């Protein structure tokens, strides 16, 4: 029998319910408001009073309204048809909602029950299977979508029956399994999983082995992110967080991309689902939308669902990872999620931690980041979830709880800098303070040796060092004046500017420059380092500056022209000639 209750207190979306039976932490319930059921989640229990956060507006709710508990946690439905969908934070399909305005209490089915899928069996009767083993496969667009033994199944099962290849809908029972007690269980194409629980149906989670290319030079070369790795992008508003994240979404080397728009602008989501169906995936030539799922809880949608949205997105990634696919999860922005936690904690009158955030914020964030990773599946194949989150630090100050907590959890740090953005040096990733821990991984170093160039990491570190020296030289020039320092300081400074302008800066809106494949990155870094390693002779600093400005201009033109085209080679020859006049 379901536990029931009555509303006895309301503050915004925090509702207190007097209950008549057992309730669980994070259990779902429906509050009935004039016949409309509003979904809510238990976040605290005290005696027979449960505090629930309502995923909808509570306008018009009265004390005494009835509540019914569901006996389950917030779950997502997993099955064919997730790709190309646009969901809200609770996995309601936004595309199938009727009205222009979001209607309270309108819940839509995440998957299409009528659509027929082309099913091919993988398992045979008599096979022994455990959770996440592949039973069959359907073609979800181009992607081989595996139908698996549900993650929630415990112990070993024997396949009793599996249906032959054919066209079926998702509700079709595709297999009958027998458990160790000899009972038959039926498996259709869908399964449910509670979003806040990590899917652990795999053999092991090894260290990352290779990098995930993004086509963004300041990431791939300077601070690469591993496949199955974690990274975060903190930055004040207006520094290009969203542009950078969209570039990664468009160009990232992954089979499946899930974008969680968490408490951000609706127009940014509109941009994704307007442009992605048109844009082509540079790795496969297919439309980008075919590999993308959008979880969208924009800033004006109910706050409580904001927290749910990132978990929903992560669970979908874990599901595709179990099929042996490479997934990329982008969450913009995790700060909004933390703020949602703060709002609730505040309404519950909990003792606050730093800046009124809940005290367990750090634990919640690191727990979430730990769900990313590369895994070895039961059948020996691998899958990965790479996670990049953005952080919106208040006032652009990185000494705030969300940034600090995330720094402990994520392995890559792409700090966006106001100063660089002001100078329109995009992407505004600070080249000196940003880091990728993966550059220290022996696995990654040897991967880069093999796949890019022997000794690649040493070259990257050399380039970083030139930048650092350039910054020091610039500080000296600013203190002592152009004439007050030896010419060598100017040369150091301009070499760092050369790397900055030619390699780090990248025009995300230019057709050619936006995507820079690894081969081209290698060519450009080699070229730039060769120029930096040349000794130059100048009469004075004006001559030095004019030379480098011209050099930079030609090299930038190369970035705007197709790789190894006549125009490209022409500029390369021009830079060669230019350096011969001044270099030794």
């Amino acid at each position, binding site marked *: 029998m379901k536990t029931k209750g009555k509303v006895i207190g309301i503050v915004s979306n925090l509702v207190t319910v007097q209950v008549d039976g057992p309730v669980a932490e994070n259990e779902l319930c429906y509050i009935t408001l004039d016949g409309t059921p509003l979904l809510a989640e238990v976040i605290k229990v005290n005696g027979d009073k449960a505090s629930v956060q309502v995923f909808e507006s509570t306008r018009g*709710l009265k004390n005494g309204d009835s509540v019914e508990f569901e006996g389950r946690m917030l779950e997502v439905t997993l099955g064919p048809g997730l790709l190309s969908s646009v969901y809200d934070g609770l996995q309601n399909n936004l595309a199938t909602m009727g009205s222009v*305005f979001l209607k309270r209490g309108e819940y839509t089915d995440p998957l299409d029950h009528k659509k027929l899928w082309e099913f091919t069996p993988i398992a045979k009767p008599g096979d022994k299977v455990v959770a996440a083993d592949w039973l069959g496969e359907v073609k979800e667009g181009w992607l081989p979508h595996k139908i698996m033994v549900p993650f929630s199944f415990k112990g070993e099962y024997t396949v009793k029956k599996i249906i032959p290849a054919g066209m079926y809908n998702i509700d079709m029972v595709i297999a009958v399994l027998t458990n160790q007690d000899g009972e038959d269980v039926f498996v259709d194409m869908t399964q449910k999983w509670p979003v806040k629980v990590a899917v652990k149906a795999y053999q092991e989670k090894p260290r990352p082995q290779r990098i995930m290319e993004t086509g963004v030079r300041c990431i791939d070369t300077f601070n690469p992110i591993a496949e199955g790795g974690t990274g975060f992008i903190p930055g004040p508003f207006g520094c290009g967080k969203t542009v950078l994240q969209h570039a990664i979404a468009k160009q990232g080397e992954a089979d499946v991309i899930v974008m969680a728009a968490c408490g951000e*602008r609706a127009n940014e989501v*509109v941009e994704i689902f307007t*442009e992605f169906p048109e844009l082509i995936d540079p790795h496969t030539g297919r439309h980008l939308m075919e590999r993308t799922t959008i979880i969208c809880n924009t*800033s004006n949608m109910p706050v409580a669902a904001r927290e749910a949205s990132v978990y929903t997105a992560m669970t979908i990634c874990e599901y595709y990872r179990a099929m042996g696919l490479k997934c990329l999860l982008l969450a913009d922005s995790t700060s909004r999620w933390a703020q949602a936690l703060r709002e609730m904690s505040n309404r519950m009158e909990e003792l606050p931690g730093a800046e*009124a955030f809940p005290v367990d914020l750090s634990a919640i964030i690191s727990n979430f980041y730990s769900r990313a990773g590369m895994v070895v599946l039961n059948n020996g194949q691998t899958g990965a979830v790479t996670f990049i989150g953005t952080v919106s630090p208040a006032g652009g100050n990185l000494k705030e709880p969300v940034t600090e907590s995330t720094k402990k959890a994520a392995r890559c740090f792409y700090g966006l800098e106001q100063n660089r953005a002001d100078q329109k040096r995009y992407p505004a990733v600070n080249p000196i303070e940003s880091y990728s821990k993966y550059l220290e991984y022996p696995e990654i170093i040897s991967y880069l040796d093999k796949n890019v160039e022997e000794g690649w990491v040493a070259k990257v570190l050399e380039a970083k060092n030139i930048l650092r020296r350039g910054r020091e030289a610039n500080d000296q020039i600013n203190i002592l004046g152009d004439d007050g320092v030896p010419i060598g300081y100017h040369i150091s400074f301009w070499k760092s500017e050369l790397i900055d302008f030619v390699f780090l800066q990248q025009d995300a809106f230019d057709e050619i420059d936006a995507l820079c494949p690894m081969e081209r990155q290698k060519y450009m870094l080699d070229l730039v380092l060769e120029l930096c390693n040349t000794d130059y002779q100048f009469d004075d600093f004006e001559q030095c500056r004019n030379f480098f400005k*011209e050099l930079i201009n030609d090299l930038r033109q190369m970035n705007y022209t197709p790789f190894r085209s006549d125009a490209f080679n022409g500029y390369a020859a021009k830079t060669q000639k230019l350096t011969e006049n001044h270099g030794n």
Partner: protein
Amino acid sequence: MATKAYQRIYTRLEAITKATVSLRAKGISNDELAVVGGRLAQVVKTKGDLVTLQVFSGTEGIPTDAAVTFLGEPPTIKVSDQLSGRFFNAYGKPIDGGPEVEGETREIGGPSVNPYKRRQPSELIPTGIAGIDLNNTIVSGQKIPFFADPDQPYNQVMADVALRADVDKIILGGMGLSNDDYLFFRHAFEDAGALDKIICFVNTTEDPPVERLLVPDMALTAAEYFAVDKNEKVLVLLTDMTLYADALSIVSNRMDQIPSKDSMPGSLYSDLAKIYEKAVQLPTEGSITIIAVTTLNDGDITHAIPDNTGYITEGQLFLRADSDSGKVIIDPFRSLSRLKQRVQNIKTREDHSQVMNAGVRLYADAQNAKTKLENGFDLSDYDHRCLDYAKEYATRLLSIDVNISITEMLDTAWELFAKYFSKAETGIKQSLIDKYWKGR
């Protein structure tokens, strides 16, 4: 608000603060309105049968035995074409001496538009101001605030922008407007002969601060009526959102909530987002564009109000007095329009984005030169050229008193480039240089 017959009247208040009253009552719904001692109030919290009401006009003089009646519904506004050309207070009551508006009753602060039903904003809104059109182009369906110190002429600029913009309705939400500014807007709209497309909801400094909380929702519900029901292009002006946020903090403080940064409520981000996210381009021709004002304290954008605003809005326009040109300019470094890529080079000339970037980059070089100058260093020839360029660039393009077409702005920029710099120094794509370079 008329009281209905047979309504229960409560006469025992349990607690009174400056902004709220509490009493015991049954069957009360969240967000519903009430009248407390003749003043409008709204339910903000219930705990058992203890109900807390936020009294919009403040609680001064309210006795513990004040009569309280509940109205059973959240705040509403009547919408129809009769709204055009009218001036209202925060409750939607006429303040222009005209009759009450007849029309359909709508709840204010209603649900948001399904993001999937939105269209990507793509209509340019030209303003004639180069600091906006050239560097920070505005698009219909966008939300963007002016960040300005209180002494900047932000209301004048906003009125200019509104009257030059090609829109069907202009809805002004005035919060804590001084009486002078209110009359300024009124006269500016009258002089432009634009009264028939103006609607104003005004809370002046003479009105109680908490009343301001109703103004944005009133203005935006009216805007939604014209944009959704009538397919019109609506421009909503909200000034000053800092005073709105201050009113939020007053209420949350009175309700004993733990403040977060800068003594603002922890929900400030969501509260502001609920307003700004009403900006929308609908699949039909209708749209709502929001231009707001957030006043700053001495240019400090790290304060919680501008900071949260910046994360919500699609850019910001930063007003600053420029000592070189003696003009108020739109600061090219701190200003940004996130949607400018939607129209630049598409609805405007192909060289727009490159000219914009080069113009700003060279202006940045001028700032470096200026720093050198201030520190007493010798300036190079390039530095001198940058400084001269910066002065002319600020006067002819950044200043808010500019009123020219976008093509003229681009041509002016090319003229300045050629006057002060070599082709290579601009760093512009060769193909554009070949086509547009003026002179040598």
